[in-house]
């Protein structure tokens, strides 16, 4: 038997009862197929929803619906499926909240967007990724960045970071969590810029 891990740390869980695909499988699929198109999804949500405070919640809802659907059956074409899910969600929200004329959204050409943007370009050279990472880290607030770099780059433990920075362990934890959260926003949000801006 060959031992090739699917992903480095997949958190395998028991299959959900009544679902034909295990949650662990769905998560592997989600990481591989859905996450790389987050820039496209965010672009879609931002250009079609006025209230920017809702965007994170909308994204979460889209992911939730997409993964729930995948538990029953993986969609054949991921990008159109994700964008159609996003469109339906916006329509429902608009109906409920009556803030946006529904026509504005129903006209959206989801398939057009799906074709427009190059599929996630995975042939990027490692150095590009490195630059992106560097930028993500540079964008952190100073103290948060310091904790993140001490932890991730220098390999210090939480306790050592707290001691080095002269802060409580609780504060060190908060900096680290915030750093992880913010770096993820940058990395996923900018994975591949739509339209090839650079």
């Amino acid at each position, binding site marked *: 038997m060959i031992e090739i891990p699917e992903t480095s740390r997949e958190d395998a869980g028991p299959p959900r009862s009544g679902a034909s695909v295990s949650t662990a499988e769905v998560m592997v699929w989600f990481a591989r197929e859905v996450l790389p198109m987050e820039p496209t999804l965010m672009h879609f949500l931002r250009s079609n929803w006025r209230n920017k405070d809702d965007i994170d919640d909308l994204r979460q809802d889209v992911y939730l619906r997409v993964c729930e659907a995948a538990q029953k059956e993986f969609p054949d074409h991921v990008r159109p499926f994700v964008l159609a899910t996003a469109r339906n969600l916006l329509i429902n929200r608009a109906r409920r909240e009556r803030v946006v004329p529904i026509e504005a959204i129903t006209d959206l050409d989801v398939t057009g967007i799906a074709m427009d943007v190059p599929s996630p370009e995975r*042939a990027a050279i490692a150095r590009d990724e490195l630059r992106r990472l560097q930028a993500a880290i540079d964008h952190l607030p100073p103290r948060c960045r310091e904790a993140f770099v001490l*932890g991730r780059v220098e390999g210090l433990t939480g306790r050592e970071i707290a001691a080095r920075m002269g802060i409580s362990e609780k504060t060190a934890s908060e900096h680290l969590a915030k750093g992880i959260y913010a770096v993820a926003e940058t990395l996923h949000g900018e994975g591949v810029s739509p339209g090839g801006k650079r």
Partner: protein
Amino acid sequence: MSDLSGQEVAAPSAKDVAEQAADWIQRREFWTWTEHEQAALDAWLAESLAHRIAYTRLEVAWSRTARVTALRSSRPAGRSAKRSWISLMWMRTAAALVVVTAAGIGAEQYFKAPLETTYATAVGEHETIKLADGSRIELNTGTILKTSHTDTRRLVKLVKGEAFFIIKHDSSNSFTVIAGNHRVTDLGTKFLIRSEPNRLEVALVEGRAAFDSADGRAQSPIVLIPGDSLVVSDNQIRTTRKSTQILADELGWRRGMLVFENASLREAADEINRYNAHKVVVADQAAAQMKISAAFPTTGIEDFVQLAHQLLGLKVDRRDGEIVISR
């Protein structure tokens, strides 16, 4: 297990969930982590699919930041002078090795380094070396590899062929593979290196590794993460992403199998010839370009010939030591 079908129920905000997920990751990475904490995390993940999604999303980003770590580990600040002297020595050694080997002279005289051991596999052989530190190296067919170590570094030279490395990481004892005028520095890794004349491939299965060119124009090392496949040919370096399936196929030899997915008959013949003393020759271009998808034992040259004959309708001619396939 909670069910999430109630989509209309107001969920906690996405930001709250993501912040909780980020907190779990930092707790796991930077603080004491026992079965107790793991159980608590598992429980949190099982609470809702939204938790799992947020956690996966952050986890993927977190693993991507591994590249920063890797880069730093390969170039420690403040010790660059000493390091670069060592790497220069390595480069020279590697270059010397290639030249000497090509000329067919024993390379030993160039290596006064202690405890050098040479391993080799004949055509068709597959051998696993277990190193004292628990690392393992699997040698594919027709491979020559030399290992040496000091207290602070472990060095492997892949003279020719292909090997799969499963390396126990030790930050005070680096592990470096030199192949041709390139080197791969392990940062806790499973990886494959295949060295052919004018072509070198490094594929990373797990962990991280840094790749360096030793041609004197070295820029910062390229950091490889799982799924990365780096190919050097004609002085061009190309990195692509490979799916788990493709990597598994490429590593089929570890269980004695060759797996071809839409490969040309020529490619398949070249591959199977690496493992067999008798060689298959594909005589004409039309036959060479036919595509096959199949799996054979590495020693299954007869299976291969039968497939060409029966499924592709090609002619088979057996001459001394060669099996010639043609239209």
